[in-house]
């Protein structure tokens, strides 16, 4: 019984660790796509321009 509870606790701790890492990855991933694909700053737009068009992001 005690072992079971401990196992469950360590399993949920592992799940929490996984979710935390997934949140960090999602945040960085969305940030990268936003920066390269959407950011309105003129210099970022100019540098990423051809790539934005080539990857079908909305651009002008």
């Amino acid at each position: 019984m005690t072992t079971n509870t401990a196992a469950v606790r360590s399993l949920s701790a592992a799940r929490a660790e996984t979710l935390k890492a997934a949140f960090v990855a999602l945040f960085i991933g969305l940030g990268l796509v936003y920066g390269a694909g959407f950011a309105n700053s003129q210099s970022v737009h100019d540098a990423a321009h051809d790539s934005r068009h080539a990857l079908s992001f909305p651009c002008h």
Partner: protein
Amino acid sequence: MITRLLAAGLIAGVVAGLAVAGLQHVTTTPLILAAEVYETAQHAHDAAEAAGPAWEGLSRTAATSLATVAVSTGYALILLAGMLFSGEAIGPRRAALWGACAFAATGLATSLGLAPQLPGAAETDLAGRQIWWVATAASTGAGLFALLRLEATAAKLFGAALIVAPQFFWPTPAAPESTVPAELAARFAAASLTVQGLCWVLAGALAGLAWRLVSQDETETA
């Protein structure tokens, strides 16, 4: 865990990004350059601003490749995060399928309302188009997840509704004014979708592979 995840995303993103950048160099970029000839004829003042052609070409290719690597890394991290959230076993095949679904959301669904455009094509307000694009991609992605991964009939119906709904709100197309030949624009739209599809699937497959490799490393050393 975080380090392992970021490492897998970075490795996959850099390799996939460089491969896709190579593909862009021979498919989409020549079409953009060809379209710019027509565009410059339209706005003659832009030609005077051009720097030395060789240096400009090189730095432009470098900037484009860097942006593509950034997007691929972002795609790889988003796919890995999504698979971890939903408790998916991460391997190259499953991750490539997730990439294909993501492409259906950000490439196919969005291109119905906003066809990929060559530079210089007539366009409406950028912010409005970006908002519709993001909303459509998110809604379609969530809808696909509900359809493919949830069992309840109600969830599947809701998923189908999420996929269809954004298509009722297409942005108003701009009045055509481009002098670029339609043949170039058509080739570009097709090439652009192919490049984006490859970017997602390759980022996914390599992220799955890299995840497996870094996880093995950790199991062996532990």
